[in-house]
């Protein structure tokens, strides 16, 4: 007997396939991508009786073997290609007892592939409540398979499934119906041309865009003794195949399944009446959103403060332990704060995915998609884009990750590209200080002041720009967009703790390892640029300042030295170098430095300006006063006037200044192409609008 066997879990979405996977593998699983595509690959190990080890692969959910998305293509390739390292020794088809009719369609297709197959009927604990009873022995006989009644929620049927997997060699590989009878001459010809191949596999190669072994669609078309068909004829034949399979399934279920409608309880209909109601549905969605918003925005502030303080403490502690020198500085001022910059996002990401997976597990997410589809479609998005757009107000990183729910690649890409326009929490400190500098404090009407109205306007601007650019992108992006909108509305279920927990852990881990590496690298580069200078004006900063301004107190002196160092560091010279470029926007070289350093993260803006204007960053009032006192040498008016202020606000509203977002977009789109286009589009828009605003208001 083989020491380990390959098991593929296959099933429709919403059948609890992932619950079965989690039950089989526990935390013993790895999540990655299939090579070259962004389809999630979930695999795990399960110990079976008699010392057999099983490699379990959780294939993406699919309704049939007729692929209409990348996810479904993966399923076919794994199942067809015997040379694939994932090619299963045994296929486990997971179905939902309440949707058995539809779930069996996929099962009958798998049965045609010569792979030993087990049918798991999941959610068996709901049978009684729904008045369903099944004649299992009869079902096994007609379907030519072994059936396991299972309840992943109640952990029933697990041992039986493990036993069956272990003795997979005894399982039948016989098809349960003869689908080729829909067009006898055609299939006989096909078999004659390729006598060594399974007929159903050949049929899949013809109708799908997959290759296996050394046969592809063209070699079949070239076979002379075989007459090929037109595409529309093939589609008609596929429809015939589906009808044929349904006939078989309906007949089988008539013999083996009885549903007592009287004893079924309809929670679904009652909940739906409320949750997709034309008024209440939207109101409830709005309240849920407020709640999630509150959690991400407010509750995660506490762990974030802890993390912030923790890393500051760690820096200090390490500094005390290690001998002074460049390496220590790199560790304490570059690497540790860089790591802190990654870890600080964990609470927000974890909270967001906690709520998203609860909403998904419960079945509510499909209702939101239903409610929002019409509105979002006007802008080239899908109903499914609403969740990422709203989470973007907290942070674009989890928002980009949340787009994975959108199956249509074009709609998903557009969502990823426009999400960074929504006003994320990192923009807030920048907005607050600039608004307080340039917008008058007076009230417009009642309790509303100019300042709070400006802030609200900036949030609105973010949303409007996101929707506007997605409308533009949908007009210009030419890509196959043939996935029609079909959304299954699953039953409402109480979320399973284990599934939610695993999902939150996996998503958070993916963020740390994926985006984390790049954030860390750029933090180190920025630290080096700010800590070293090309000439003695940097290295002798201490002497120069002490000589020129000997009357100052020690603290003032230290700040002046820091300021001198920054001015003559590499990043300082970079600020000077880009001054001609930013002057038309109303900025001097100091703001230029702030712009460069806040490429890493927007919130760095305030900190950098604080250092440049050599004041302690803890006293907000003083930074503001210093900034307010700054005079533009060219125009002679205060540097931070209305024109510069509005110009800066617009720049920060539009510019892509967040390396974490760039990193995650690169990861989610599998390449540099889209993040670079996004960077140029957003920065271009930022530059032009800031330029127009400054020149107009000057």
């Amino acid at each position, binding site marked *: 007997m083989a020491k380990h066997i390959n098991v593929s879990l296959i099933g429709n979405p919403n059948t609890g396939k992932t619950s079965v996977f989690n039950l089989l593998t526990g935390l013993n699983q790895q999540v990655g991508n299939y090579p070259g595509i962004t389809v999630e690959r979930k695999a795990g190990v399960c110990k079976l009786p008699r010392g057999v080890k099983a490699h379990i692969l959780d294939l993406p959910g699919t*309704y049939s073997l007729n692929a209409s998305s990348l996810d479904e293509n993966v399923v076919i390739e794994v199942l067809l290609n015997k040379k694939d390292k994932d090619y299963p020794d045994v296929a486990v088809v997971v179905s939902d007892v309440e949707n058995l*009719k539809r779930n069996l*369609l996929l099962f009958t297709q798998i049965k045609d592939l010569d792979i030993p197959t087990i049918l798991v009927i999941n959610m068996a604990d709901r049978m009684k409540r729904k008045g369903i009873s099944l004649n299992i022995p009869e079902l096994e006989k007609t379907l030519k398979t072994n059936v396991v009644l299972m309840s992943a929620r109640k952990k029933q049927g697990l041992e039986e499934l493990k036993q069956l997997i272990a003795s997979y060699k005894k399982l039948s590989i016989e098809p349960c119906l003869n689908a080729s009878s829909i067009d006898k001459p055609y299939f006989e010809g096909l078999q004659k041309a390729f006598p060594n191949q399974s007929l159903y596999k050949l049929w899949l190669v013809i109708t799908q865009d997959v290759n296996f072994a050394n046969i592809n669609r063209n070699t079949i078309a070239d076979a002379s003794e075989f007459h090929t068909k037109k595409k529309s004829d093939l589609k008609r034949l596929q429809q015939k195949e589906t009808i044929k399979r349904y006939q078989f399934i309906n007949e089988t279920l008539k013999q083996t399944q009885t549903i007592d409608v009287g004893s079924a309880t309809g929670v679904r209909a009652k909940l*739906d009446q409320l949750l997709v109601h034309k008024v209440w549905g939207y109101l409830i969605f709005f309240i849920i959103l407020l709640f999630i918003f509150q959690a991400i925005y407010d509750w995660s502030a506490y762990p974030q403060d802890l993390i912030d303080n923790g890393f500051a403490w760690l820096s200090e502690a390490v500094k005390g332990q290690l001998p002074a020198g460049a390496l220590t500085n790199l560790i304490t001022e570059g690497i540790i704060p860089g790591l802190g910059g990654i870890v600080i996002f964990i609470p927000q990401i974890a909270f967001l995915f906690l709520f998203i997976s609860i909403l998904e597990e419960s079945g509510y997410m*499909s209702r939101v998609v239903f409610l929002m589809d*019409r509105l979002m479609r006007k802008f080239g998005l899908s109903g499914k884009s609403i969740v990422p757009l709203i989470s973007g107000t907290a942070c674009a990183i989890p928002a980009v990750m949340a787009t994975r729910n959108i199956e249509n690649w074009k709609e998903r890409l557009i969502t990823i590209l426009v999400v960074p326009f929504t006003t994320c929490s990192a923009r807030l400190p920048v907005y607050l200080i600039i608004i307080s500098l340039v917008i008058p404090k007076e009230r417009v009407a009642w309790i509303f002041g100019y300042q709070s109205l400006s802030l609200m306007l900036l949030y609105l601007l973010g949303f409007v720009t996101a929707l506007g650019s997605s409308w533009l992108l949908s007009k210009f992006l030419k890509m196959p967009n043939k996935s029609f909108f079909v959304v*299954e509305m699953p039953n409402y279920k109480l979320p399973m703790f284990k599934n939610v927990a695993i999902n939150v852990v996996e998503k958070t881990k993916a963020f740390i390892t994926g985006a984390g590496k790049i954030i860390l690298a750029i933090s180190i580069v920025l630290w080096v640029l700010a800590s070293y200078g090309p000439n003695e004006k940097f290295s002798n900063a201490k002497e120069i300042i002490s000589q020129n301004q000997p009357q100052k107190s020690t603290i003032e002196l230290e700040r002046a030295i820091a300021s001198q160092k920054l001015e003559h560091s590499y990043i300082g010279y970079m600020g000077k170098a880009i001054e001609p470029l930013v002057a038309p926007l109303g900025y001097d070289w100091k703001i230029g430095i702030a712009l460069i350093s806040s490429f890493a993260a927007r919130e760095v803006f305030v900190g950098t300006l604080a250092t440049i204007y050599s004041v302690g960053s803890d006293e907000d009032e003083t930074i503001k006063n210093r900034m307010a006192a700054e005079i533009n040498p060219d125009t002679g008016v205060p540097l931070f006037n209305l024109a510069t202020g509005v110009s800066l606000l617009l720049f920060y509203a539009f510019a892509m200044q967040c390396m974490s977002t760039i990193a995650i977009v690169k990861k989610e789109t599998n390449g540099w192409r889209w993040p670079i286009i996004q960077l140029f589009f957003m920065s271009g828009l930022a530059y032009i609008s800031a330029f127009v605003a400054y020149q107009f208001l000057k």
Partner: protein
Amino acid sequence: MKTTLAELKRGQSAIITMVETDAIPLKLLEMGCLPGNEVTLLQVAPFSCPMYLNINGSHLAIRKEVARQIEIELI
């Protein structure tokens, strides 16, 4: 003038008589949207799109333009 699924009222049921195969996704057929099967309109979003249906026991939502490709007979 044939009746299509798009004209179904909330709560009404019908039998599917014809499906314009070339204009609708195969996925919909696979979920049971085939001639002879029963369909019920459960809910509609504002402006009656998308439509929330029960087709042959499957609960799903489709957009109106797809519903126009499915002919029905009211029961």
